[in-house]
C-alpha cells in the first residue's frame, strides 16, 4: 500500500490516542519514519501489521480499528489535500460512490502500481442504492463501512447501511451493501 495510507493510520492514532500510543504501535509493528512517505509503495503486510498492533495496544477489535480508520480517512485525511477533488467527483455521497471508479482510475494515473478497489452502484430509488465493493485485498470490508459513513458525514447526510452480504470473490474480498439515505 502507499505510504499515504500508513501516514493516515498514524495521524488517526496520534489524534485520538496520543503520540505515545503511536510510538508503541509503530515499535510493535516495526514501522519507522521511512514507512511514512506518501508516494512510496510498501508491502500490504506493513499496513496489516499496523492495524494488528493498533488492535493489540488500544484494546480494540480489528473491526473497530478499520471502521474508525475508514471514517477518519474521508473526514480528516482527504480533507487536507483532496477536498476539492472529492467535491468535483460528487455533490452527494451516492454520486461520489458512483464516480469512485473514475476517481480511482485518475488516481491510478498518478499512483502507479495502485491496486484500486472497484465500486459498482445500482440505483434502487432516489434514496437507496446497492453498492458492490470488490478488492484484491482481503479483510477490508469494515474499512469500506467506515469510508461510507465518512462520506455521508462529509456531505452532511445521514446514510445507513441496511444490508450487507459477502459475495464469493476468489483472491480477494467482495461485499454487497444496501445504503439508504434518510
Amino acid at each position, binding site marked *: 500500500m502507499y505510504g499515504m495510507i500508513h501516514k493516515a493510520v498514524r495521524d488517526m492514532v496520534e489524534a485520538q490516542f496520543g503520540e505515545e500510543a503511536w510510538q508503541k504501535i509503530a515499535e510493535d509493528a516495526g514501522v519507522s519514519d521511512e514507512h*511514512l512517505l*506518501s*508516494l512510496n509503495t510498501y508491502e500490504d503486510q506493513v499496513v496489516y501489521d499496523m492495524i494488528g498492533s493498533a488492535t493489540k495496544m488500544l484494546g480494540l477489535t480489528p473491526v473497530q480499528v478499520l471502521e474508525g480508520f475508514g471514517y477518519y480517512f474521508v473526514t480528516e485525511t482527504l480533507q487536507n*489535500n483532496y477536498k*476539492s477533488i472529492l467535491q*468535483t*467527483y460528487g455533490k452527494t455521497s451516492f*454520486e461520489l460512490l458512483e*464516480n469512485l471508479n473514475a476517481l480511482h482510475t485518475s488516481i491510478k494515473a*498518478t499512483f502507479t502500481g495502485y491496486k484500486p478497489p472497484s465500486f459498482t452502484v445500482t440505483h434502487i430509488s432516489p434514496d437507496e442504492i446497492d453498492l458492490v465493493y470488490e478488492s484484491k485485498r482481503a479483510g477490508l470490508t469494515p474499512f469500506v463501512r467506515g469510508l461510507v459513513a465518512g462520506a455521508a458525514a462529509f456531505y452532511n447526510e445521514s446514510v445507513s447501511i441496511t444490508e450487507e452480504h459477502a459475495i464469493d470473490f476468489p483472491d480477494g474480498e467482495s461485499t454487497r451493501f444496501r445504503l439508504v439515505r434518510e
Partner: protein
Amino acid sequence: MGNRQDSDLYVNSPTDNRSSISLDLCLKLFPLVMCLDSDGHILFCSERMSASLGSPAIGKKLFDIFKIEGPGARTLEDRKISKEDIGQLFLLSSAELELAFRGQVIDGMYDSKHVFIFLATPWLSWLYDNVSAPRISIGDFPASDSQLEYQLNLCSSKEMLSDLKAFSKKLEHAREQAESASRAKTKFVRHISHEIRTPLNGVITSLKLISQEPDESRKSRLLEIANSSAAALMDLVNEVLDFSRIEEGVFASSKESFNLRPMMREVEAGLSAKAAEKDMFLQFDLSPYLPTSVITDKRSLQRILYNLIGNAIKYSESDLVITRIGLYSRNKEHKLEIEVEDFGIGIPEQDVRLMFDAFWTADNKKSNEYSTGLGLSIVKEIIEKLGGTISVESMLGQGTKFSFTMPIEEPTAQSTDTHAQTDQPPPGSRFHGKVLLVDDNAINLELAQILLGNLGLDIVTASDGAEAVATEKGQDFDLILMDIEMPILKGTEATVQIRGGGRNPDLPIVAMTANVSSDDIQHYITKGMNESLTKPVANEALVSLLARYLPYSAGDETNSPIDESESEEVSSMESLLDTETFDSLVNDIGSENAQRVIGMYIEQTSQQLGELVDLMCGDDLEKCRQVSHRIASSSLSFGLKRLGNRLREIEHAAKDGRNFTQAESDELKNLFAESKDVLERACGA
C-alpha cells in the same frame, strides 16, 4: 481507419476547401461547447454550457463576459477571433461568475455557416485557486481530460514533498544527535583519562615512596593512600563497565524479597561517614504505610540510592539530605515513590535537561571527587529497565530534588507477630527457641551466649563434642550452633552421632568456623550439618541465620547507635586491632558486657599464652596446634588481627610438624603484650 475522410468527421465547405469537424461529434466528446463568430458573438451553447453560465448568453460577446487570459495579448487588443487562433490554448476566466474555461477554438459549421467552435473544459487550477467551492462536477469533463489526474498528481506531489521534508528533518536531527553523541564520547574519553590519572598517580607515587620510607607508621599511611586510590580507580572502571553493559542491553535484574528498613539502614551506614566528613546530615523518612517486605531488584535499588544520595553529598553543599520513601498502590500496581532532596547550590536550568545524558558532568562541580559522569545516566537506564521513571527539579541556590519510582510486586501484609521467613527480620526482633551452643573456647562461648541472649533465646552450652552429644540427648533443642575444632570429639563427629540412627533429622545444626573454603563447607554438609556460620560471628549474619530456622517477633527498634568518636590514636592501634570488628562487637553486646568478656579474655589468654610459649619450644606439637587454635579464634573475635593471624600461622606450622625458635616465642610474647595493651585502651575509651 481507412475511409475516415468520407465519414462525417469532416464536412466539406461549399465555398472553400476548409475541412471542419461536425458540431454533433464535438457535442459527443465535449460536454461544454460554444459556437462563436469572428467578433466573439456567442451563437450557440451546449446544454451543460448554458447551465454552467447560468443566464442566457446567446448574442452576448464572449469578451464581455470573460477575461481572455490566453492566447497572448493580441486577441485582447482587437477582440476578434481569427484563423491564427485555431489550435491555440484558450484560457477564459470570470471572477464574477466564478467560472473559468480552458480549451481550443476549431473551425466548424453551424447553421450552414462557418463558425469557430470553442471546445471547453473547466479550468481546474484556476477554479481550485480562486473559488472556494467551484460549481463543477465530473460530468463537465471529457473522458480524455487529464486535468484531474494532473490535479491529483499535484496534490500528492505536494504531500510527498512535505513528507520528504519532514523525513529529512528527522534524519538531520538523528545525524546531529549522532554527532553530538560522538563528540560527547570524545569528551568523555578525555574526561575519564583525566579522572583516572589522579587516583592512578596516587597509587604509583605512594607505592614508590613506600619503598624508600623507613618509618612504619608513615609507611602504613602511604599504603592506605595507595589502597584508597586503587579503590577509587576500581569504582571508576566499574562504572564504565556497567554503563557499557547497560548500553549493550546486558542488564539482568534479579528480584528478591527483602525488608526495606534494614536495607535503608545499610545505605545510611554506607554513606554516613562521607556525610559526616562534610558536616552533612542524612535524614530518612519512611512512610508508615510501607510494607515490611517488598519484592524488587534490591541491588539496583540500593545502587540508585547510593548514587543519588552520594551525589548530593559530593556536590550539593547542602547540610541536609532528605530521602523519602512512600508507597503508591492502585489496583494491581504497586510502586515505591522515592525522593532524594537537598537544599544546596542547585543546578542551572540548562544542565537539568542534560544531566541524565551519558557523559554529562556539571562544569561547576567543585568537588575533587573522581567521577565518570556516567552515574546518573546509569541510574536512569536502570530505573527505566525496571519499569520506573525518574525526574529532577532544581532551583539555583535552593536545592535539587530527584524523584523516581520503582515498581514492586504486591506487597505482603504488614508483618504481624511470629513468622519464620527467610529475609532479614527488623532490628530489635526477638527470637523464640532453645539453642545448644557448642565451643571449646570459653571466650567465644561467652560472646555467642551474650549475642544469643540479647536476641531472646534460651541457651545451653557445651564445651566439646562429647558434651554436646550428651546434652542433646536429655533435652529438646530448636537449633545447635557447633564449633568444629574441639578436643575429645570434633563438631562434625558430634553431628554424626546426634543424627545417628535417623534421629533428629529436622534439627538444624550449624557449623561455626573460621574455615570458609567451599570444600570445608561441603565436608560439613556431608557430615549432616545444615550450613556454616563464619567466625568471628557478626550480629547481622547471626540474625539472618537465626531467621532461617527460628520464629521471631518484631520488637521495637532499640538499637543503640555507636558513637564513633575516637580518631587520633587509631592509626597506632590499627595494625594490632581491627577497630571495625571491635566496634561492631561492642555495639552488638553492649560495652558493659564487652568490658567483662575482654577481662575474661585477657586473664585466660595470659595464662594460655604462657602455656603456648612453653609448648612452642617442646615436642608436643599437636597440643601446641590446639592451644594456638583456641587463642587465635578468641583473639580474632575481638579484632586482634595481628595476634590472631600470627597464632594461625603457628597453628598451621605446628600442624606441619615445624619446630619454633626461642626468638619466635619471644616475639609472640611481645605481640600479645602489645595487643593486650591496645585492647585494654580501646576498652577503656
